[in-house]
């Protein structure tokens, strides 16, 4: 193994250890923060564009102006809103 390969391997190992520590210490916190943000975003889309799911919220002019920004998220948002949930999801 060349010196460069050894250094590369050491870097990879250190990165993995760092990731494991992050996973144990902070990943849950980061995930909860992202989940909160995601939930609020999806709630906002539901309030402004609920008509897309069949909820009788007719988007006013100002909501429709937001449509270009919302379009990239519509498919994942719809899937999440309509996905069947189970009680064991609360453990996630």
């Amino acid at each position, binding site marked *: 193994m060349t010196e460069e390969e050894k250094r590369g391997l050491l870097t990879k190992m250190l990165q993995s250890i760092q990731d*494991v520590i992050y*996973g144990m210490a902070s990943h849950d916190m980061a995930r909860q923060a992202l989940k909160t943000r995601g939930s609020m975003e999806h709630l906002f889309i539901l309030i402004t564009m609920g008509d897309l799911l069949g909820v009788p919220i007719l988007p006013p002019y100002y909501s429709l102006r937001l449509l270009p920004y919302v379009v990239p998220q519509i498919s994942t948002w719809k899937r999440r809103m309509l996905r069947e949930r*189970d009680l064991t999801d609360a453990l996630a």
Partner: protein
Amino acid sequence: MAAIVLLVALIVVIFGYKFYAATIDRDVVQANPKKATPAVMYNDGVDFMPASGSVLFGYQFKSIAALGPIVGPIVAVQWGWLPAFLWLMLGVVFIGWVQDYAAAMMAMRNEGLTMGGLAYKFISPRARGILLSFLYFYLLLIMGAFGAVVAGLLANPVVPIGLLILTLAGVLAGQMTYRWKMDLVMTTIVTVFIALVGIWIGTTTPAQHIVQWINGLAGTGPKHVLYQTPYGPMTWPVFFWGIVALAFCYLGSVLAIWRFAQPVNYVSFWFVALGLVGSVLGVFIAAIFHTTDVAFKIPAFVTWNQPKLGWLWPMLFVTISCGAISGWHSLVSTAGTARQLEKETDALPVGAGAMFTEAILATLAVIFAATALTKGDTVIYDAQNLYALKMGAGGVWMYGMSRFLSWIPGISPAMGGAIGAIFLAVMALTVMQLVLRFMRVASAELVGDKIPAFKNPHVGTIVAILFTFLILWTAFWQRIWVLFGGANQLFAGLALLLITIWLANEGKKHNWAFWPAVFMYATTVAALLVVAWKSFKAMMAPNTAVAFAIGNAVAGLIGFFLALAAIVLAVDGLKSLAKARAKAAAHAGD
């Protein structure tokens, strides 16, 4: 001896991972690194978010390692250290990793469904309903079992002040991170330092006097006995600190997660890491430099039948759960990990790897227990009485930490013990908060339509806490532990049955999951029925006070219900398995 046992454990887990687990992953399940996982496909930023394998390994290990790998072995060495160690090694190699890994794969290949959804899909709608009610009682037992250990720990004068200051440091960490938007490294340094100083303060004489004053507020005699139970005295300190522990969990359940539960968990992680790494190294250092006595004092084999626990089969296999096999892990693997795996080939190092690592933690607990017969004048395991455990399992762990951590400069035996206690208390309280949060949601979902009060988060939480108190204050904690272990292992059997049915539906070899499922089912149903019978017997003993009769009745009914639910699920499951096998045979014939 301790170092040899730890080395053997390391070799066994490495071989188990490399030669058995890796073969199944490659040749049977055929994990495909190029196949898109639900985390990558859906990536909705809420339920499905990909994360790297290393990060998930840390997350999985932290989620699955709680009191189980520590308390279980400490209790189980009463049969001898060898049966406990053998069950850990054989269990993790042939059963434990199978469940953790395959549950994650099964959920991942079924659009990230969790256990309820998987039971609905592979067994029947009835199976899902039974599983969810099973889950409620199983989680109630977690509250009782963990609560009993934490109450005992907090009654030790060196623990509560340190835990209180650590909690406040955690709340500060949440404020600093989420409200003041401060750098995480700075927040970590400040709050971990505060917590460390707090733990040290807790070991000082004035702090211990404060706790001793609280411990002496009620009760009679030198131990402050409040009332007698059929299993020994209920002391005021355990009674009081049980209330404090549950108040802590109440806050964790009802407050916003970023305000209390998460940041406290984050700060305490650093002490868990210190304890783990420090004590593993401490065992080897003690063996080489004789810094502490590592000779095993408990015999390799003590007895087939421990009077308070029962026969080695089936009771050993439910006394030690996490570390060998645990149903809780299937919940973590399906609800959490499967929705974050970036590629299928990560499931092995994450699921199986974390499980094998937990087995090492459990081996550490065996070593702590087997090397400690007495602590000064206090008997830990009574050599005159079949090595019956005379101290709380938390106390044994504390004593082990105090011996094996004190090689680190600056950490005295008292400080090491306090770190060990906080390590254990925090691991228990983290799970208890999550459980209470789930029970609140479950109450609202299951009963909220009929009794609207349960939709209020406080009502659901308080009802769950009251049930916990009932179990905590009236039943024998080693019996609650075994009942919890039985429920936990039965959940594992259920998960393995689901995995078997999934594999059969896919036309894959499934005996590597089926026979572990059969073993777990047979063992745990037997154990639950034994415990239920003992609880009913205790309930009907002459001159039993009403409260204990009720506590034992509740414990007995839960045990009986769980065994019955498992049998019904098994019948439905085996029917589904037979259909899947018939379908696979028909396809093979084509």
